[in-house]
């Protein structure tokens, strides 16, 4: 059975268990109609020109987990930031694991979307925010919306500064065969509030898993959101990450994406600016090899004056890996004094690696400063020579230079423990022996 047909029948089965009269269900069925009509994107869609889902969709995925599987903390401890006190929301094969999690309702809500959708006290928030910025005309997002069931729900009320970072971790065990996971996260940060979030998808062994995740982040007036995505999974795991961020006046949102492993990674990152004096930052490091494929698709929509956006993506590609970067900056007529910057630097290590990049600017306002830069190249030979002439072997010299190339993206990481962790992940990936934690 084709995956699409399977999804159609699964949706019917899914519907039977739900309250059909709720508002949320209306949204679900509308989205499903869209998906049913349009199906999965193909290479003919301009947005998917360089990334093909065809092979992935041939797998026979399990849509709903069969049973609850528990895992021991000691087996997965290394995937947590354990040297740091954090709130945790942990899912195993798409099902919430209370044992591994550490949620709260004390001053702020760090809990489950399923709870937020069903309990009356959250009704107002859900009504105001749920599915408000996720694109209605995107079939993968619609698919996720129609199967909305579980995910993280984070609500930071006015002027609250979350003292602990929040970790959202999705484990997949591989004990139930090939899986299609569709987590849905809703994050609302009210006026002057601040939060740091770390999201990670991790398989516990190599098996075919496809995650189609949607996250909506609402950053209200003067709030700060710091979001980190760690993508360092087994070589058979694939993820399509759709993140939508709406920003109000004076807010500041930073998203860092570390794509270090996986079969196919597609990051759709969308920023919508709805007020003045907004700062949006997107940074990413991609280091892949084998036949891995990473695709960053970013959109920044500047619709109000005096806003800034900053994008910096670095990629290092070896073996037969494929990197794609598609960055779009849209500046409306009214968005004068916009300052938009976009930078994409790539290094191709091996002959068979491929880069496709398409930085786009669409500008309708005249008093703006917009620039994009894009480079594809190799390590600087003279720098390499310099290191070698000082007795550093070629292999190490190369590794050092590669490490230095990627490193400056890390500078803006605000959590020192996380920075260390990523640093050593990168060093390991490249093969540099730092000899110490930075």
């Amino acid at each position: 059975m084709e995956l699409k047909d399977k999804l159609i029948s699964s949706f019917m089965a899914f519907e039977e268990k739900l309250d059909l009269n709720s508002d949320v269900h209306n949204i679900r069925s509308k989205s499903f109609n869209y998906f049913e009509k349009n199906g999965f994107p193909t290479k003919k869609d301009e947005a998917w020109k360089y990334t093909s889902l065809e092979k992935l969709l041939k797998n026979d995925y399990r849509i709903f987990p069969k049973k609850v599987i528990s895992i021991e903390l000691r087996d997965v401890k290394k995937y947590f930031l354990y040297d740091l006190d954090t709130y945790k929301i942990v899912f195993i094969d798409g099902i919430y694991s209370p044992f591994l999690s550490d949620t709260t309702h004390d001053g702020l809500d760090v809990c489950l979307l399923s709870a937020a959708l069903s309990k009356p006290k959250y009704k107002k928030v859900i009504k105001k925010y749920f599915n408000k910025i996720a694109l209605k005309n995107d079939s993968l997002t619609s698919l996720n919306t129609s199967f909305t069931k579980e995910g993280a729900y984070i609500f930071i009320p006015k002027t609250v500064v979350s003292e602990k970072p929040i970790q959202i971790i999705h484990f997949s065990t591989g004990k139930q065969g090939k899986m299609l996971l569709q987590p849905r996260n809703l994050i609302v940060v009210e006026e002057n509030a601040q939060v740091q979030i770390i999201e990670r998808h991790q398989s516990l062994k190599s098996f075919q898993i496809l995650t189609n995740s949607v996250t909506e982040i609402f950053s209200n007036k003067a709030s700060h959101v710091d979001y980190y995505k760690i993508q360092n999974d087994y070589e058979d795991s694939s993820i399509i990450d759709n993140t939508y961020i709406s920003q109000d006046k004076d807010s500041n949102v930073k998203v860092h994406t570390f794509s270090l492993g996986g079969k196919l990674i597609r990051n759709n990152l969308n920023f919508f600016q709805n007020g003045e004096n907004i700062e949006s930052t997107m940074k990413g490091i991609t280091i892949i090899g084998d036949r891995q494929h990473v695709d960053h698709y970013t959109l920044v929509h500047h619709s109000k004056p005096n806003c800034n956006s900053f994008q910096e993506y670095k990629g290092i590609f070896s073996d037969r890996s494929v990197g794609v970067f598609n960055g779009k900056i849209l500046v409306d007529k009214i968005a004068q004094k916009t300052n938009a910057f976009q930078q994409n630097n790539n290094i191709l290590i091996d002959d068979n690696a491929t880069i496709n990049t398409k930085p786009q600017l669409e500008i309708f306002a005249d008093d703006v400063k917009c620039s994009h830069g894009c480079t594809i190249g190799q390590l600087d030979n003279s720098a390499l020579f310099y290191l070698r002439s000082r007795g550093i072997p070629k292999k190490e010299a190369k590794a050092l230079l590669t490490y230095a190339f990627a490193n400056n993206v890390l500078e803006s990481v605000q959590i020192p423990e996380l920075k260390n962790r990523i640093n050593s992940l990168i060093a390991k990936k490249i093969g540099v022996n730092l000899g110490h934690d930075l």
Partner: protein
Amino acid sequence: MAYTEEELKKELETKEYEYGFYTDIESDTIPVGLNEDVVRKISKLKGEPKWMTDWRISAFKFWTQMKEPDWSNVKYKKPDFQDISYYSAPKSKKKYDSLDDVDPELIKTFNKLGISLEEQKKLTGVAVDVVMDSVSVATTFRETLSKKGIIFCSISEAIKEYPDLVRKYLGTVVPFKDNYYAALNSAVFSDGSFCYIPKGVRCPMELSTYFRINQAGTGQFERTLVIADESSYVSYLEGCTAPSRDENQLHAAVVELVALDNAEIKYSTVQNWYPGNKHGKGGVYNFVTKRGICHKNSKISWTQVETGSAVTWKYPSCILKGDNSIGEFYSIAVTNNFQQADTGTKMIHLGKNTRSTIISKGISAGKSQNSYRGLVKIEPRAKNARNFSQCDSLLMGNLCGAHTFPYIEARNNSAQIEHEATTSKIGEDQIFYCNQRGIDTEKAIALIVNGFSKEVLNKLPMEFAVEAQKLLEISLEGSVG
């Protein structure tokens, strides 16, 4: 007697046949509409050999299977292909007795461009003094060229006189299957230019500068083929800075360049067709396919200044097939009022050590939309390929838009690619600085725009550069508010 719909239909059908089959060859016109017979007829009227007719027919057949593309960033009313007359002898322009009868606006523009009085007369169709006739000048140049073995003639002449050359190269760079408009052009092209530079010859003059008057009016489906044989050089100029009041709405030309080993082709275009009026009515659609192929150590350089047309949609491209070949693209696209331009280039690197440079300057004013769309593709075999691209946009006023869509595809680790794009406006401080020194705002803008586009203007042949510079000023006139 009642006149039924059936009868009307029948009559209409026969009517078409009437014109389709019985038109006198001498009258040189073909009824409006497009079908296989029209294509055959065009071929017959031009006295073409069978292979050419067959080629046209297969292009036409392929065209009928194709869909009109709509991916570009321009909006326009789709042309009705059955409402176009596909062949008519060069339009006999209105003859005036003296320049005084000509539209004074046009004369004003000519004077600003610095076009000589004689040329002005020619361009507007005023009868020209026999002594000053530039045709005689043209003939002398033709002699000089033929002494060197250079062939420069219309493509229909070439099809008859040099069929081997034409047959060998026509459609090799832009096959008729390439795109919708290329297929249409291949089926119905009426005329165009053909140029062949033999081995080791350096063409002594800028081709077509002196012929520009003669070349005018070659029709809406122009076909150009330039072949530079081994180690030769040619600089080819197309178009005209003078505004042309062409009534044809759709222009779908095809230009093919072939640079054999060690050859160099420089192709410059200045396009200033009718852009429509201030309210965006009328104007020419310019949908052109231009492409060149570079063999070993050869070089193709495209320079274009696009100021006219309501809708411009074209990408002069280079296929860098041979090792060490070089492709260059220098472009200025100016849009004002309701004009739209979606232009750029494609650099396809196939050979080793190939290099390409892209400099694109877009200036948008009024309510216009200006897009750069480009592709840089490095294939796995293209070791040490190098590309540098720069696209800058200048916005004037907040009703226009500037867009960039660069596609970069690298499949090889020795490639070095750089791409830069900026968007800016003319700074108030820059204008203030000029004002302070007694330069009025309009002049100041012209000065800044010229500085902005200098890198491209420098690439134009001397006499063209001066005119192009003035053309920029004129195109942007009144855009400062």
